[in-house]
């Protein structure tokens, strides 16, 4: 997890920070998009070749104007795919949605159609001469991991973190635990199932001792006892 944040101050004078998506997230999202697009084109191609003449032959026999049109058409379709998805799907394409990242303006607001069109047109530049060397170098150099298209359009990608409040459901309102202790104990309890036995015991004993249980008693706790003790303390016993 990178600690890099985009700091935004809302008109309500409250500071929000958005975690910036690094090159790994971006590359994976791109690969997913490309896979989806290639999948669709393959299905269309074979579907068409099945009922009609071979699409490649058709292209080779087509008059020159049609071939230019096909060339431009393919470019425009791709451009419109990226742009329309980002504008209408809240800054996300298919791959970005899977990776939980989204495009935002540098002030944290959603992208406008113009900005999205610019950053996706300049995809061509980032791609040059093949497989994004320009974009990758720019992203490595830039502190906010932006490619050339992002720099020009004034956009960047942020991560959508999914944080729930379920872990606090167990806690009693009073309890007398400090904020730090509540955070530690709820963290331990919500992760209890996914820890292995040794860690459950070790962490549980440590936490119980830090909440004031005598050292001799704390060291004798089993995992289940530690859990019961900690959740009782959390409820305010």
């Amino acid at each position: 997890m990178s600690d890099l944040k985009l700091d935004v101050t809302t008109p309500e004078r409250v500071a929000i920070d958005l975690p910036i998506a690094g090159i790994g997230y971006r590359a994976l999202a791109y690969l997913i998009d490309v896979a989806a697009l290639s999948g669709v084109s393959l299905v269309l191609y074979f579907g068409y070749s099945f009922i009609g003449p071979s699409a490649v032959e058709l292209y080779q026999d087509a008059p020159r104007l049609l071939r230019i049109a096909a060339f431009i058409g393919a470019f425009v379709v791709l451009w419109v795919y990226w742009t329309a998805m980002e504008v209408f799907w809240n800054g996300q394409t298919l791959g970005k949605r899977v990776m939980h990242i989204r495009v935002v303006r540098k002030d944290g607001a959603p992208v406008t159609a113009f900005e999205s069109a610019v950053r996706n047109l300049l995809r061509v530049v980032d791609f040059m001469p093949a497989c994004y060397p320009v974009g990758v170098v720019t992203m490595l150099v830039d502190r906010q991991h932006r490619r050339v298209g992002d720099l020009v359009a004034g956009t960047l990608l942020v991560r959508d973190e999914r944080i729930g409040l379920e872990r606090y459901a167990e806690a009693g309102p009073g309890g007398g635990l400090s904020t730090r202790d509540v955070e530690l104990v709820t963290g331990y309890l919500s992760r209890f199932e996914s820890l292995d036995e040794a860690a459950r015991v070790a962490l549980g004993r440590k936490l119980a001792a830090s909440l004031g249980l005598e050292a001799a008693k704390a060291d004798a706790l089993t995992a289940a006892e530690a859990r019961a003790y900690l959740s009782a303390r959390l409820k305010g016993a």
Partner: protein
Amino acid sequence: MAEPLPAFVQRHSADWKALEAMLDRQRHGKLALDELFALERLYRKTSADLATAQTHYAGTDVQRFLNQLAAKGYGAIYRARPDRKAALKDFFAKGFPEAVRETLPYTGVAAALMVLGVIVGATTVLLEPTGAALLVPDHLLDLIHRRELWTDRALEANTPSEMATQIFTNNLRVTISAFALGITGGIGTVLLLVFNGLHLGAVMAACGRECLGFGLARFLLAHGPVELSVIAITGGGGLVIGHALIEPGERPRGEVLRERSSVAVRLLLGCAPFLTGIGVVEGFVSPGTLFWWPVKAVVGAALGAAFWLYVLRAGRSTAKR
């Protein structure tokens, strides 16, 4: 002393959940007016809670949760007006022509660089015919020596049409590259423009030596003026970016680059439909002898004049008001 964390969560979490649900529905555009008021109220309350959490519960999941929620609400509430059609119309009525007028000196320099290339290429081939081997692609040279002009057969079967498609894609590539190479401080743009002119000049001279010059001129008449203008304008855009990198003046380089490149991008976006349109002319009108050459000349001159009239005049009167 702040209230305990669990109490804070329990007291407010109903409001947060309500805001979350409302934002989900807002994304699908299904909110009534009174719901919008509620959304606004909940968003403000959540902002206040976030401020509280930043002070008293820093570093907890509650703070991170509220941060995420406030960011979502901020994005939903403070979004730009989605008036896309009007924006597009405004861009071609005003934004694009203004950008061209603003960067006219750069367009001039780009055009001059191309002309320089043409002159050098043409003189080289005229004075030293063997130089053509270096400057003109082999397959074109071959055709020229056979005294065939590929452009005359462009509407016929495969091989020449291959070439014509190549010419168009080549122009597209040159246009976009000349723009993009601005990021090299303009050096790449300058080289590309000169070399492109060099090739053009060399091909023209080689055709001229083999008495095909008139045929090539006939091919260029109809689409040449607009196409070369578009290349000069986008090349100028590349120079704008390059200039901002080399000489940002008093302000930070990144800031100037962003500001200038937004002008340059407007040039490229505005030119795109014209480049496409002129490709159609190049495909239909220019090749072969389907049209008598004076007709091509008139078409070319008219299109060129219309293009420049539009670029130089459009949106002017509104600017004065």
